[in-house]
């Protein structure tokens, strides 16, 4: 086979395979996905009162914007609103995206294991967690009692889940702030706890968005 014919064969072959692998295959999967797994294919979107409030799979911030008392406007810092965790809600894990919980530009925090920057970041997360939850936790919280997932940045920056230990500690605060029996909140935590894949792959997860929406429903929609 001469070189010229080889080039022609390559070009034609590349185009045919591009149509098969790059057009027919993804469109076929899109078609099947939209028919057989509609909700999954669209991202497990969650609506409340007709309004899109999030995706079950994507972690989001449950903080409220801070209002500047002098101006009456939302405080801004670096083009982003300044926020404070809302104590009525369970909080997701620390995020390494810019800004935090950015589901349009996921990124790792890339904190090295032997870096003082990492130590300071983790220490700051611990302090924030203790500040938020410590007052409501029997006996108070120390760094050693903070579950690792609450102090360490997630990989995606939009981890939708927290550990059971993390949820149990936050449950004390949520119950106190909402004036609900702790039992009831813990029962909700258990309801939104997912098991491991096939019973052995991964860790149990508490889905924060579902849990928070269920809390709001307790009071007739808030």
């Amino acid at each position, binding site marked *: 086979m001469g070189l010229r014919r080889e080039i022609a*064969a390559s070009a034609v*072959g590349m185009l045919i395979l591009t149509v098969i692998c*790059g057009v027919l295959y993804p469109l076929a999967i899109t078609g099947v*996905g939209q028919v057989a797994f509609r909700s999954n294919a669209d991202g497990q979107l969650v609506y409340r009162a007709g309004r899109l409030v999030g995706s079950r799979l994507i*972690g989001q911030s449950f903080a409220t914007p801070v209002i500047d008392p002098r101006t009456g406007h939302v405080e801004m810092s670096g083009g982003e609103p300044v926020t404070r965790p809302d104590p009525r809600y369970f909080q997701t894990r620390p995020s390494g995206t810019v800004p935090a919980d950015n589901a349009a*530009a996921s990124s790792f925090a890339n904190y090295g294991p032997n870096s003082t920057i990492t130590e300071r970041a983790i220490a700051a997360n611990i302090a924030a967690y203790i500040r938020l939850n410590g007052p409501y936790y029997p006996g108070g919280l120390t760094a050693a009692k903070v579950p690792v997932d609450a102090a360490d940045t997630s*990989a995606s920056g939009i981890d939708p889940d927290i550990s059971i230990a993390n949820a149990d500690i936050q449950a004390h605060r949520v119950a106190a702030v909402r004036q609900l029996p702790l039992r009831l909140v813990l029962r909700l935590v258990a309801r939104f706890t997912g098991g491991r894949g096939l019973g052995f792959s991964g860790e149990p997860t508490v889905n924060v968005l579902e849990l928070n929406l269920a809390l709001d429903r307790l009071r007739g929609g808030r």
Partner: protein
Amino acid sequence: MTVLGWVLILGFAAILTALALPLGGYLAAVYTGRGTLLSAVLARPERLIYRAMRVDPEVGQDWKQYARSMIVFSLAGWLLLYLILRTQRLWDFTGLNPMGFDSAPWNVTFNTTSSFLTNTNWQYYGGETTMSYFSQMVGLTVQNFLSAAVGIAVAVALIRGIVVRSGRAIGNFWQDVVRTTLYVLIPIAVLVALLLLSQGVIQNLTTYLTVHGITGLSQTLAMGPVASQEAIKLLGTNGGGFFNVNSAHPFENPTGFSNLVEMLAVLVIPAALVFTYGRMTGSRRQGYAIYAAMMAMFLGAAIVAYVAEAHGSPAQHAAGLHTGVIPGSGGGNMEGKEQRFGIAGSALFDVVTTVTSCGAVNSALESFTGIGGAVPFANLSASEVIFGGVGTGLYSILLYVLLAVFIGGLMVGRTPEYLGKKIEAREIKLTALGILITPLAALSATALAIASRAGRASISAVAGHGPQGFSETFYAYLSQANNNGSAFAGYTGFIQPVAGNAGSRGITFADLVGGLDMLFARYAPIVFVLAVAGSLAGKRISPAGLGTMRTDNPTFVVLLIGVIVLVGALTFFPALLLGPIVQGLTGHLYS
């Protein structure tokens, strides 16, 4: 560490073996031209493709013709992909660029194109802020398939060279590539995509959605045709994420079960090919011996990574965290890891994708502990022969097998033979060259990058203090030279101020050196492998005698592991000492 963590690691190995055995038989049927279940459906379209290309699939090629077809085909793919990526806006009329993203700059595109052609899928860009759906589907997904098909084709050609009884033909490149795509990759990819869809991986073509959260904050959700690309990304050991954080993104990898499916998808073809090898050589024990060597090294790596990550990092301990297992939390180094995977699911995924050329990640490698992070280093230093990439793993370990046979032959003082074919000076020279290309590319690029200001510009300002700066640089070029694609992601070659590439620029040094590294370390070894195949194909098979060294018993497995470890260690040990090993041995923090 938890009992279930160990169950995951061992259970994974068992399920993998159970899936790979039958698949290995199927692959052997495909490549020896025997009919398969799918032939009834696929034989006609297959013939039509050959006719359109005007090639005769039944004509055997010698190694030079085979190599030429491979190079011309890859060049065509390179040009097409570069063109698609650089003309991203031109395809807006298809409606597949809902966010109106511009093309990435030329230097980043050079790196990306070389990356996807060589099955590396190293990514300086973040998918959801750079690529249109058109580029992801018609550009990147296609090369996910075809780079995998080329790798498998080369491995099959080498097997034929080893087993053929006469003549110089080692198969037909066109037939091998088309068959691999139609009979192997597409059917399994459809299966994997459906499994992933059932778990929550998304697959749509809609514009990004804006969410109004219950506390009044808004969030934008990136969307896209993810499941179709995710399936082949893993199956073809490509590893290029649809999203920036790859398989850590909940839309790419939503559950503990999907994590298991993804890990199996990565290893199933490389593992099956080893059994295919046993069948095609007519001695399944040859395949089992190689499989045993691979599995032993794989489990060793998984155990070390799991123990190290479960222990936690110096930074965590300095901050006062307790990293042991407590009720309701698995503990360990959860920095840069997702809750649903936990420590075991992250450590195992990391090992699975760095022993292969996959390089997908479900956690931040940069945040792994020194020893945990040394495991991917060690895997890459072994040149990806522990299962390895699809095809590349098998042909790479076969080079080591030839080397082990040669060394064994020297020890007992006989002319070395492998499966009845004499291994002589020519084969050993080609083998040594094939083995040494990757270390040469990795180490010289690292040296250049560390010694020059242009190279150091890529080191992360957040993480790259002290030995970590060396580690991430070394890892970048080791990963690209191995066509792996995983990264200590702080190392960058692309500055992107806003999504969509307006005002973005590449770091030319990192982009070009990395891109050339990938191309050189992919195609040069392939040419040497095909030359070995051609050289062996022409040899007569002599019957095994009393003095013939056996290559299917435990002694040989140990010899093979020894050769792999020795070559890798001698080549990379000094560099490894400077980075991850220093970090692993100290609790010291650097600033």
